């Protein structure tokens, strides 16, 4: 596909998004517009996806196209650029966008004020499509803020509830802080000359101090958007508050756009990366992953636990990104390419399965009206199609073969193994710790999703809402089925997505393009789609095909042989339960009890989790009570003191509002004198 076509497609897509937003404003009066608007949004995402795939699948790795638009600030205009890395993230955004819009066709038909969703929804997509394309700081920040503000409006959809309003406030504050940090980063990189285009930043060589300053500002700005600990506090509040298909987009796509900013900034813009940035990033990533997984395990709200699990996966991706930076700084381009490929592949996979799970949680919410796990149960009998689709998502996120989550975590672990060969002793010693943290996070995620699926979909209904649940509409099922199919396909054939991802990653770590082709599936006799072999045939190979086909074949044999050996049909009877089945569904394990062992083991030290059981003495007829309390260390040690400090300071400063005019005049005079003294001293 020629580049003219791609930019035309992108232009059409962005213009359509704006048009759709205008149309969305009218849906309160004309609800008939809802379905065509969502359908059109899905189509527009397909158009943008095609444009991105055109670049990503182009056979020559260094296909970079640019456009300069005559809008924007007078002296810099708007620069756009489409390369492999941008295309990867556009694919992630638009895959999520298609699923969310198709799901929206069935989902949103009943809300009272559809314009609250349909007006910002296309703008949110437009913002996320603009950020990866931006090639100057101004355009980048416009896209970034469009994305933030549109999603803030979407978080406010359920503004009647105080919790949602608080979530939106916290989100807006963090978004403002993040944008400010990015502004500082770009300012530092542009330097005194004001080279705000990314090309100028690529050419310039900032001093080590400036580059480090910019890297930290980037980490704060992009990291707060992505949900890196300890800047993650807004994420578990804001993501669940939005409607479910928007939550899916925020978790699946928006956090990835933030990681795009981190990757682009640290690998390309901020001068030559230094090894310790990568090490620091990898350790932060590992800690974020473990903390997110642990907190996900302690939540009783289906969407909040999914939001915490997003934090976990962001941690995994960031750890791989950090390793990529460390390798690049050490001059090991092959390993850097592998680590970056692992990060991109996990970002893509997380975009798929987390969207699937949020849509599944939305389906449960739609059919039962509740997000509380402890009111659900037995949905596998009621939501006959949703249940297996959500199960696929749960297995994918638990990183088990033959699904896609395992394929990307396997690559991340291979990068961790490579990291043991790094030159710096700090990184060498960090490698096994990062590996242990990531393994812990994966295992905690598995425990968390067994708990999620087991409590919500298995067992007996704990409440009438679960007993009377109904299957969701075909459009919602279609969106989930598409994502689940991609999870299965990328798990069985990881080489297919890895080939273009590896090319894009290779370009980032080694612009000459020599390293880009080496690390995926180039062993003798093994083609890329059969197996992934990070270092040719020298070390380990993972073949999703062997796992998937072997599993299917052996399951078939097990079923066949068993049915031949044992022909007695199964009989239905009451549950055995050691001879004392209890008919009351309240005797089942609950969300709190299923997480109790791990909450006690890890939650005590990390989250100050405390379980309190009050058991009345024998003969007393009062019911026993159970309460579980915990706190997020980021709130306790960072944000609560900060908020307290700000309130105290503002209360003191409040006195300034009520002074007499002569005091104001003298204050201004004093300020003037002070500034003059400063000028006199410094000159």
């Amino acid at each position, binding site marked *: 596909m020629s580049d003219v076509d791609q930019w035309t497609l992108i232009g059409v897509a962005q213009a359509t998004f704006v048009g759709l937003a205008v149309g969305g404003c009218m849906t309160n009066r004309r609800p008939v517009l809802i379905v065509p608007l969502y359908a059109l949004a899905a189509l527009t995402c397909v158009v943008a996806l095609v444009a991105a795939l055109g670049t990503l699948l182009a056979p020559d790795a260094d296909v970079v196209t640019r456009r300069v638009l005559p809008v924007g600030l007078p002296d810099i205009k708007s620069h756009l650029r489409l390369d492999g890395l941008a295309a990867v993230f556009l694919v992630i955004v638009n895959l999520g966008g298609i699923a969310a819009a198709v799901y929206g066709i069935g989902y949103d038909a009943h809300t009272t004020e559809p314009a609250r969703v349909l007006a910002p929804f296309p703008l949110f997509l437009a913002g996320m499509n603009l950020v990866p394309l931006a090639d100057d700081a101004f355009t980048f920040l416009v896209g970034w803020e469009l994305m933030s503000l549109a999603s803030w409006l979407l978080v406010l959809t359920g503004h009647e509830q105080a919790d949602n309003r608080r979530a939106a406030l916290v989100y807006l504050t963090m978004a403002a802080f993040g944008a400010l940090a990015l502004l500082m980063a770009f300012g530092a990189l542009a330097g005194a000359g004001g080279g705000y285009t990314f090309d100028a930043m690529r050419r310039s060589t900032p001093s080590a101090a400036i580059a480090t300053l910019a890297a930290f500002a980037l980490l704060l700005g992009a990291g707060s958007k992505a949900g890196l600990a300890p800047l993650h506090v807004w994420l578990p509040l804001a993501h669940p508050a939005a409607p479910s298909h928007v939550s899916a987009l925020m978790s699946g796509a928006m956090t990835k756009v933030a990681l795009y900013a981190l990757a682009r900034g640290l690998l390309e813009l901020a001068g030559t990366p230094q090894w310790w940035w990568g090490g620091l990033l990898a350790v932060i990533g590992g800690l974020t992953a473990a903390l997110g997984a642990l907190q996900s395990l302690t939540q009783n709200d289906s969407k909040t636990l999914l939001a915490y699990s997003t934090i976990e996966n962001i941690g995994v991706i960031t750890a791989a990104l950090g390793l990529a930076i460390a390798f690049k700084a050490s001059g090991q381009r092959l390993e850097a390419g592998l680590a970056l490929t692992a990060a991109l592949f996990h970002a893509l996979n997380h975009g798929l399965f987390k969207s699937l799970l949020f849509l599944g949680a939305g389906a449960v919410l739609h059919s039962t009206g509740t997000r509380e796990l402890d009111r659900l149960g037995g949905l596998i009998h009621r939501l006959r199609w949703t249940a297996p689709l959500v199960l696929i998502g749960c*297995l994918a996120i638990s*990183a088990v073969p033959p699904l896609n989550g395992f394929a990307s975590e396997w690559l991340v672990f291979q990068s961790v193994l490579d990291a043991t060969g790094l030159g710096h002793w700090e990184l060498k010693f960090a490698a*096994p710790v990062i590996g242990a943290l990531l393994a812990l996070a994966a295992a905690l995620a598995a425990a968390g999703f*067994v708990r999620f699926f087991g409590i919500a979909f298995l067992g007996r209904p704990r409440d009438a809402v679960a007993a009377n649940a109904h299957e969701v509409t075909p459009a919602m099922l279609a969106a989930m089925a598409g994502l689940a199919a991609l999870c299965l396909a990328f798990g069985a054939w990881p080489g297919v997505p890895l080939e273009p991802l590896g090319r894009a990653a290779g370009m980032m770590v080694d612009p000459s393009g020599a390293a880009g082709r080496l690390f995926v599936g180039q062993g003798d006799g093994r083609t890329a789609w059969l197996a992934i072999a990070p270092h040719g045939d020298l*070390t380990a190979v993972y073949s999703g095909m062997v796992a998937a086909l072997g599993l299917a074949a*052996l399951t078939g044999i097990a079923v066949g042989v068993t049915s031949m050996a044992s022909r007695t049909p199964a009989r239905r009877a009451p549950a055995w339960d050691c001879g004392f089945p209890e008919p009351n569904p309240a005797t089942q394990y609950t969300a709190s*009890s299923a997480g109790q062992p791990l909450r006690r*083991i890890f939650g005590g030290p990390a989250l100050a989790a405390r379980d309190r059981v009050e058991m009345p003495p024998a003969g007393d007829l009062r019911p026993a009570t159970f309460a579980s309390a915990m706190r997020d260390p980021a709130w306790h040690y960072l944000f609560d003191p900060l908020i307290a400090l700000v309130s105290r300071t503002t209360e003191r400063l409040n006195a300034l509002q009520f002074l007499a005019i002569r005091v104001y005049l003298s204050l201004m005079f004093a300020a003037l004198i002070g500034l003059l003294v400063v000028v006199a001293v410094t000159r």
Partner: protein
Amino acid sequence: MTDLALLIFQLLLPVALAPLLTGLVRRIKARLLGRRGPALVQPYRDLARLFRKEPVLAFNASWLFRGAPYVSFAVVWLAMAAIPTFATTPSLGLGLDLIAIAGLLGLARILVALAGMDVGTSFGGIGASREMTIGALAEPAMLVAIIALALVAKSTALPDLSKAMSEGVGLRVSLALALGAMVMVAIAETGRIPVDNPATHLELTMVHEAMVLEYSGRHLALIELGAMLKLTLYLSLIGCIFAPWGIARDAGMTALAAGAGAWLAKLAAGGLALALFETVIAKMRVFRYPEFLGAALLFAILGVVFLYISQHLK
């Protein structure tokens, strides 16, 4: 042709021998306790009886409950097939490395845990929750042990690992530490004393048994066979990494016979060691698991550190 035959042998032999290994461990334990113990072939008889019996399902058991025994058995079987037992050549280990084996065992654990929660009894819940806890504690130790091994072998594929370990690695403290970590993980993952007790019938002390309490007939037979196969798997895994002697590297008949003999000897030795260990140690309570598996993680990390130092000194 010989490759295919070998592959089929590698698939079927462990399944055929797994009940015998379990019978051996039970027999040795009984002898150590001064009992005569059941016949070595008793597990085969138990399985045959279970296959003959009528399976009983709870009224609200779903498709997941019925399907999990088959799939989880197939998962363990696939993982077993990826381990070089008596020959390395036609092995799935080239497509499924040690990390993939750990992942497959994780899948089996998830499936059985979900099945345990399906009927909605509290025993199923307690078993599932504890099983996943053990998994979460064991996996970091397993992964760091893999890092230590990969440092020596430069690969995570088991045929390479086994080859590298048999070629003059020598006795090393770091590898002993990795072995310790692996053994502790294996004990936890196979549900042996002191973490779980495979023979218990006291509900509150059960982990694995509590999860599968609702199963009967052929479903239970598959679950039991899967658990026996998992024990064989871990013993073969430790054998092929830390005692890589005798594994046939070509398809010659003598080499294969020697490989099979060596494998059987390793399994028997492993079974004897397990029985001895289980006899002299007491089951620990649930909230002491972190200490046990934390020690495993510590061993593994120390192993990696020692390897760094020895590489540095070289």
